[in-house]
């Protein structure tokens, strides 16, 4: 296995190396948001009337809502009428086979290190490739279909499996849930859909790679994953964007549903463009992710490694409805330069003997701000519920900030909630110790940070752990000295 130090070295200069743009002709909707734009998006995607109506209803709700202001992030007001809500590479229809994909787009993913092929590097991973507003390819579909597993873009799912989409869409994150979820519900363009049938253990990692390419657009993807009784699936998303001076909005919604004894493992390696050293540009990552442990003894586990974005506002959550269901949240959030992250989780215990575990590792460097915000809510009926929360912060330098904001609400006497928090700095002793053994200062920081995050990194699927380690090192380059 390749090591953190070696992989950090592979990358030169510490620049964001995914920041190129692809010269592909795109069809972009004019900037602005109104009912006509929404109808246009819906029509373009050939959606049934119920979905168009669903979008319009979300839009009406959104108009009456206000942007949330409680997070510890600062940014100038966003002009939602200046954003284009649809951008897609020009192509008559979705390519029939992987061979028909536009060579420019193919090259893009090759440059990103995730070639569109069913072989070699990604032999054990099925990937859905989302380019701006649309899914451009999905690998291993055939093989998965043999097991009854549906893995496709959500647009295809609307067309080919409308009953499943209609049954579950918006059941975990209702359209009116919050400002950004409502916006997403109105304008979502693509994203991934997964259905794992009863008793099936998905034999490979499922993955979606999101790429923002077009300028002046937002990305609003929607992901829906359903694990039927006794099934298991591990899903991973990755994302990058070009370097641009303006800020771009990414407002996704992810819904997970786990039925009786089903397990969903959802991992994120988030690497949106974070802006430059002075805080110019970068993605606003305003995302709603929520999983419903609907069935008894079901389990949903979120693992996230957040290194990118100018602003991150996200709280992957679990609603523990089924008896003895389990929710987990493992997070590493790294902020450097002027990045701001306000991230954490919500664990809502409804069912009896439900359990949740939260392990959050925040790393702040430069002039960044890193906040953990979490809610543990134990409802009256959650007899014997348990929660364990551990929040550790690591500071690099003396101009950054780390904040921990835990909310704990317990309404059942038999429940137990534990919370532990620590804040530490990378010490000069540690750095000198590493350097005196021949390890350079930057590699030493990567090593110490990787050690600090190990509990979380160990939760990532093997295929991505290496990539994630690499990212940690890169995003902290230039943070010492």
């Amino acid at each position, binding site marked *: 296995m390749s*090591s*953190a*130090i*070696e992989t950090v070295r592979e990358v030169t200069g510490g620049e964001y190396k995914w920041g190129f743009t692809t010269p592909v002709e795109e069809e972009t909707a004019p900037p602005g948001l109104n009912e006509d734009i929404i109808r246009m998006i819906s029509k373009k995607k050939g959606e049934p009337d119920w979905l168009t109506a669903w979008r319009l209803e979300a839009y009406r709700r959104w108009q009456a809502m206000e942007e949330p202001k409680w997070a510890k992030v600062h940014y100038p007001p966003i002009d939602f009428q200046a954003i284009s809500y649809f951008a897609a590479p020009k192509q008559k229809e979705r390519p029939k086979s992987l061979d028909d994909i536009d060579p420019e787009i193919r090259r893009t993913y090759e440059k990103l290190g995730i070639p569109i092929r069913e072989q070699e590097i990604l032999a054990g991973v099925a990937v859905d490739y989302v380019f701006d507003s649309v899914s451009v390819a999905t690998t291993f579909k055939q093989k998965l279909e043999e097991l009854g597993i549906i893995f496709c873009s959500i647009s295809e799912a609307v067309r080919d499996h409308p009953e499943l989409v209609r049954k579950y869409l918006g059941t975990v994150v209702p359209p009116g849930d919050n400002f950004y979820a409502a916006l997403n519900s109105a304008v979502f363009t693509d994203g991934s859909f997964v259905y794992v049938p009863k008793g099936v253990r998905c034999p490979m990692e499922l993955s979606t790679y999101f790429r923002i390419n077009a300028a002046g657009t937002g990305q609003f993807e929607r992901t829906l994953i359903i694990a039927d009784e006794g099934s298991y699936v591990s899903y991973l998303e990755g994302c990058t964007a070009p370097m641009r001076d303006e800020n771009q909005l990414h407002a996704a919604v992810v819904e997970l549903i786990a039925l009786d004894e089903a397990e969903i493992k959802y991992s994120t390696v988030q690497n949106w463009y974070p802006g430059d050293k002075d805080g110019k540009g970068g993605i606003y990552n305003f995302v709603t992710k929520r999983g419903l442990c609907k069935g008894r003894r079901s389990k949903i586990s979120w693992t996230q490694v957040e290194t990118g974005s100018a602003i991150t506002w996200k709280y992957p959550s679990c609603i523990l409805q089924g008896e003895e269901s389990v929710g987990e949240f493992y997070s590493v959030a790294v902020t450097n330069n002027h990045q701001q992250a306000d991230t954490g989780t919500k664990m809502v215990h409804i069912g009896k003997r439900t359990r949740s575990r939260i392990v959050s590792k925040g790393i702040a460097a430069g002039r960044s701000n890193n906040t953990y915000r979490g809610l543990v809510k134990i409802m009256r009926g959650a007899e014997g519920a348990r929660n364990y929360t551990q929040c550790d912060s690591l500071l690099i330098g003396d101009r950054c900030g780390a904040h921990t904001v835990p909310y704990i609400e317990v309404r059942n006497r038999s429940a137990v909630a534990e919370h532990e928090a620590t804040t530490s700095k990378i010490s000069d002793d*540690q750095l000198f*110790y*590493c350097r*005196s053994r021949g390890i350079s200062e930057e*590699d030493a920081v990567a090593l110490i940070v990787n050690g*600090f995050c190990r509990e979380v990194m160990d939760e990532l699927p093997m295929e991505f752990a290496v990539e994630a380690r690499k990212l940690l090192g890169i995003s902290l380059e230039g943070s010492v000295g």
Partner: protein
Amino acid sequence: MALLEIEDLRARVEGKEILKGVSLSLEAGEVHAIMGPNGSGKSTLAYVLAGRDGYEVTGGAVRFLGEDLLAMEPEERAAAGLFLAMQYPVEIPGVSNMYFLRQALNALRKARGEEEVKPGEFLKQVRAAAELLGMPQELLKRDINVGFSGGEKKRNEILQLAVLEPRLAVLDETDSGLDIDALKTVAQGVNRLRGGERAFLIITHYQRLLNHIVPDRVHVMVDGRILRSGGKELALELEERGYEGFAGKAA
């Protein structure tokens, strides 16, 4: 050419002059001991040699293998073949001993233009070193120095020394906090690493370590200066008379 040539070295820590003109010459393959009371500047000398921040050199020169040691970054000094076994080894949570060692070894090799060590070869090397020092294999998998006893930490430093194979090893009070059995094991380890080109600079407070690692030269350091240098018998004389007797005589 001497392996290490220290000439009239002066250094300050937090504005206070600690080293007041230290001169010392050490040939390849030699073992020198520096003895002295607390606060005499022994550990400062070790840190200055390794290049620790906050130790400000105000005068003098240090040549290591003919190169200007003081101009190098700490990691460059390591790559040149200098190793410091620390008095207080540092804990790094979440980083296994084994992993750390491999990173360090590969960093050194890379700096020298060599290829990375093969995993199988590395494993063999580390296991052999652990055996030499009577270290349980289990310690190799644990996080660096986290939850190690004092003795285990010191042994771990010598383990690193054995794997990283420096040209010059500076041992900063490796004997402090060790019981007699641990002391013997550590000394045995060092003795096996002796010989050939490798040199040692052993900083110690007490003579007892030198019963087990017999030095070629002994230097007595008091108040930032080397007062006297001599053969191994100097350590015994010192043990008998105490530092005070020594300092008095010099004054």
